[in-house]
């Protein structure tokens, strides 16, 4: 098997604030293979975005800093955590592209979209202005914009939200990056537009064989596009595995909670939609044991004292929960979870 595009080991990111240190990411490890789509899911404030932006070193330092012992190995040779800012500029946009959450604010209002797309091309490739503009037009065609020749001369305010997100995708793809990071690319869009953007990302992934990391809290998006899923909670990965395993054989109570919070077509309409009671812990002072213990209906004594290790469910599916320990009592997942595997 080829080398993974990205190997993240024990990534820890903290923010130094006046009130103390916020441990936003507390030891995240995962691999991403070529052509793979990895979804990172979790509630707001669980460290998804910080993880994603740290992969490109986009979180400003200070206040944030990557802790000792963290490793982000890109393409088997570049250690992102140790690159100089100058080297990092050559990685950003060229090797890794990024799509942000809100297309309404992520484009410069005073530059034409053509200029904004070609900017990255001019920086990373030895081409002239006309050539870069031509490439920008091609990219707009690729992301499904009508009249690309006219669009390149337009300003962001002349485009709708969905079109702007297409422009963002064109910017991210401008230099054929090996890795595309999409930080909640659909959250700020209308539902119908969301579906179009997800379809577009999936098509592009198939056409270009780019690896994609997609951050989202929308499990519908995950089901549409992801090959593998990483469930994050309070700055840690609590469960990771292939899409079908996560949806049909989830092992972590937090994953159960997430799945049960999604409305289903086949559920009883008279019942209220489930939610996970409580809120994520304070990351100024993360709990000693399992961070989810306080909200977990299955929590045992040990959960509050010791952080669980990752237990393997299968070769590529693992869950960080004491329930997986051989000595733990057998717990059946709640009704409606698992057992619907279609493949």
């Amino acid at each position, binding site marked *: 098997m080829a080398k993974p595009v990205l190997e993240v080991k024990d990534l820890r990111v903290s923010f130094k604030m006046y009130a103390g240190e916020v441990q936003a990411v507390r030891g995240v490890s995962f691999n991403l293979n070529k052509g793979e789509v990895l979804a990172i899911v979790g509630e707001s404030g669980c460290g998804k975005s910080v993880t994603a932006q740290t992969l490109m070193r986009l979180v400003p330092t200070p206040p944030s800093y990557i802790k000792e012992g963290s490793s982000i190995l890109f393409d088997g040779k570049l250690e992102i955590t140790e690159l100089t800012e100058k080297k990092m*500029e050559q990685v*950003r946009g060229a090797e890794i592209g990024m799509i942000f959450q809100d297309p309404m*604010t992520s484009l410069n209002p005073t*530059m034409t979209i053509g200029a904004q797309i070609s*900017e990255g091309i001019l920086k*990373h490739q030895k081409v002239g202005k006309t050539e870069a503009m031509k490439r920008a037009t091609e990219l707009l065609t690729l992301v499904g914009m009508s009249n690309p020749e006219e669009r390149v001369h337009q300003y962001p305010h002349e485009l709708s939200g969905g079109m702007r997100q297409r422009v*963002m995708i064109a*910017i991210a793809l401008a230099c054929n990056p090996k890795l595309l990071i999409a930080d909640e690319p659909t959250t700020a869009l209308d539902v119908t537009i969301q579906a179009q953007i997800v379809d577009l990302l999936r098509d592009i992934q198939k056409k270009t064989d780019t690896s994609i990391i997609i951050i989202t809290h929308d499990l519908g998006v995950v089901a549409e596009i992801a090959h593998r899923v990483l469930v994050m909670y309070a700055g840690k990965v609590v469960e990771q595995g292939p899409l079908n395993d996560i949806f049909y054989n989830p092992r972590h109570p937090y994953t159960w909670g997430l799945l049960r919070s999604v409305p289903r077509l086949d559920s009883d309409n008279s019942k209220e939609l489930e939610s996970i009671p409580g809120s994520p812990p304070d990351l100024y002072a993360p709990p000693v044991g399992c961070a989810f213990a306080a909200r977990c209906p299955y929590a045992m004594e040990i959960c509050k004292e010791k952080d669980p290790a990752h237990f393997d469910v299968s070769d590529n599916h693992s869950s960080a929960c004491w329930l997986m320990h051989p000595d733990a009592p057998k717990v059946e997942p709640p009704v409606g979870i698992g057992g619907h595997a279609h493949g």
Partner: protein
Amino acid sequence: MLKYVLQRIIYMIITLWVIVTATFFLMKLLPGNPFGDAQMKMSPENFAILKAQYGLDKPEWQQYFIYMGNVLQGNFGVSYQFPGRSVVSVIQNNFKASLELGLESLIFSIAIGLGLGAYAALKHNKVGDYTAMFIAIVGISIPSFVISPLLSLYIGVKLGWLPAGLWDGPLHRIMPAFALALGTIAILARMMRASMLEVSSLDYIKTAKSKGLSSRAIVLRHMIRNAILPVVTILGPIAVNVITGTLVVETVFAVPGLGSQFVTAITSNDYTMITGLTIFYAAILVIVVFLTDIAYGLIDPRIRLAGRR
């Protein structure tokens, strides 16, 4: 929009009328008269003749209506101190130097002010930021009547680097323009800094960074251009301020501008000059403020709608 413009024009005329009237009567409260003081050697008969010649023997309310009638016909009267020169011709002769001084100082203020503000924002909360903002505080706290004589004395007379006064060549313009610009530099620097800091936290700056642009390119292409927008909107009133605020600086550096004419007119009770110049300056201010308001109305739909109501 048309209704809004008409409304503004009516306000403008009322404002000018109030200013003319107030100046006219306030001026009459000044002690003394245009023809000399108590120790003058003129006989009472001659004095009465002079007064009658200039129409000062009539009651003040009559003088006021005669003057207003003249003003409406574009006649601002004849100067008392320079007999034979009309106020309009004085404005025509001397406004050029004032306008030049004002514009040069405006260019100074914009270049230095915006640069200083941008620099401070980039060095946010570091030594550079504190230094730039200290300079700005000093600039705004020292009035031009303090800085102008100091500059003229030390750089002009003692060091002899630049001419201490007069208005002959480019070198003569540096010190007056700078002295006049100081306060504006400070205001613009503070505004630019705030605006840059606001822009720097916006999402599209992160997008620019994610393209791999260097910090220099991000600052030049993405930040400054957007940060300048709010600053541009206050440039109108600031320009008026600088162009009409040349009084003291012109007097100190002996610039043959309108400001120094104004000062001499006041000290010698030159009634027609005082009212004429006041109207002229007030008109500039009111017209530029009017134009700025129209521009806002065009840019910001909220203001346009408010005007319609």
